[in-house]
């Protein structure tokens, strides 16, 4: 990648996701973009953040984002490595982790997530990887942040399958289900940032990335996306953020 190139939409999404970790102590990291963003946060706004991977590594400090969740560098740089049983039972489930980072193949207006199938479960059009750690990350982290590309195939009116619960069917849903974390507080896309309305829990566009027309975000959303009256523009990536990102991905 050319060092002089401006930030892409993807870069902006990663930077915005990294910024969401400022002030957080611990993050349960999924692989892919969440892992890149979490490591960018560690290099910029959250230098002391403890990254926890579902492979059981606690306090991983990989020099480069790993390809897989089980890459050797995650274990070698970790403060400790625990078993799969322990990472879920002792560390994730009790709600001691501040932030969970999730992706999804489908997301609805309440930030519920599908990573299981597109189409009918018994005869799916697309068989997706499935749940992994997501349902319990979504249930138990003090809050979650979802990172997805902004297309109407992903931001859908209705999920084909509910793999992980966001805000369920609206106010009070998480409490009724006994989910103790606060659920998704931000959905970060390549166009902007969505947050749940404090009253209805429906996702609202609160910020657009530099150069993005809010109308484009609405067009690319599978439900009639509400736009916050005080819609803001995302701060563009700083030189330091982009340098740190390049250092991680070059």
């Amino acid at each position, binding site marked *: 990648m050319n060092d002089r190139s401006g930030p892409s939409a993807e870069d902006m999404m990663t930077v915005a996701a990294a910024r969401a970790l400022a002030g957080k102590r611990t993050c349960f990291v999924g692989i892919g973009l969440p892992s890149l963003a979490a490591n960018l946060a560690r290099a910029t706004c959250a230098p002391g953040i403890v990254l926890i991977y579902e492979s059981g590594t606690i306090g991983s400090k990989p020099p480069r984002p790993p390809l897989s969740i089980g*890459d050797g560098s995650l274990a070698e740089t970790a403060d400790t490595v625990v*078993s*799969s049983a322990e990472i879920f039972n002792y560390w994730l489930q009790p709600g001691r982790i501040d932030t969970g980072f999730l992706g999804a193949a489908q997301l609805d207006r309440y930030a519920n997530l599908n990573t*299981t199938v597109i189409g009918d479960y018994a005869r799916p059009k*697309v068989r997706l990887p*499935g*749940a992994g*750690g997501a*349902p*319990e990350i979504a249930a138990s982290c003090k809050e979650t942040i979802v990172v997805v590309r902004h297309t109407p195939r992903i931001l859908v009116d209705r999920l084909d399958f509910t793999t992980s619960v966001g805000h369920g069917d609206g106010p009070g849903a998480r409490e009724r289900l006994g989910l103790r974390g606060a659920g998704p507080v931000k959905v970060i896309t390549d166009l902007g940032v969505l947050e749940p309305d404090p009253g209805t829990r429906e996702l609202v566009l609160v910020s657009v990335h530099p150069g993005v027309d809010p109308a484009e975000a609405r067009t690319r959303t599978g439900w009639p996306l509400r736009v916050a009256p005080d819609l803001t523009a995302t701060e563009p990536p700083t030189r330091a953020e982009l340098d740190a990102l390049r250092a991680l991905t070059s």
Partner: protein
Amino acid sequence: MARLTALPEALAAAVRDGDAVAMEGFTHLIPHAAAHELIRQGRRDLTLIRMTPDVIYDQLIGAGCAAKLVFSWGGNPGVGSLHRLRDAVEHGWPRDLAIEEHSHAGLVNRYVAGASGLPFAVLRGYAGTDLVDVTDSIAPITCPFTGERLTAVSALNPDVAVIHAQRADREGNVQLWGIVGAQKEAVLAARRSVVTVEEVVDVLAPVPGAVFLPHWVIDWVCEVPGGAAPSYAAGYTERDNDFYRDWDAVSRDRDAFRAWIDANVLEAE
């Protein structure tokens, strides 16, 4: 009581058609050599159990060894889909594949229950998800003290657990370290177990973070250096990330897949 044998002999004795087989290793120490031997031995109708089916089960499924898959995340980590798994689920090729799926937390607790001699385990999980509707091994359970409703998952006790580890001694005690996943639980939950190792040594020097499995809970130990490739064994081998990336193209195409299996599994020994 562990016996040190060659891999073909161990698997011929341990795994029968129709068995439920757990081959564990969470993106590390994945027992690929053992999977290839099962393909060579022509095993059929297996119930394959594994948190992360990964390329290892993509190969077993594509080779027609499996009737059912019990799993919690079925992708090629960091790359994308498992195309042989998808082809089996989406199109029934090379045969129909029954699916029993969980979250990681649920599946690992099924192993924990199995290893603990309990019929079920309890977790905070699945509430509000559609997984409860499609998976029979999930049920609600009420706390007898608080009345709170939680989730139970039934125990998993595979017929056979197959894992890869760094080392064993000549008595068959096994030592593994790095990302340790659910291997201990899988072995302790299973009726029979086969462990392939990078090397057999005289003395197992203690290693930080190592899991130790005593010889008296293991049935077969087989020295298979590099037996985790393209996965890795921390301290011995590196993960072959290029293999995982390249697998995407190989596995997308039925003929390319068959040619790969012919050249790399059936004609290899």
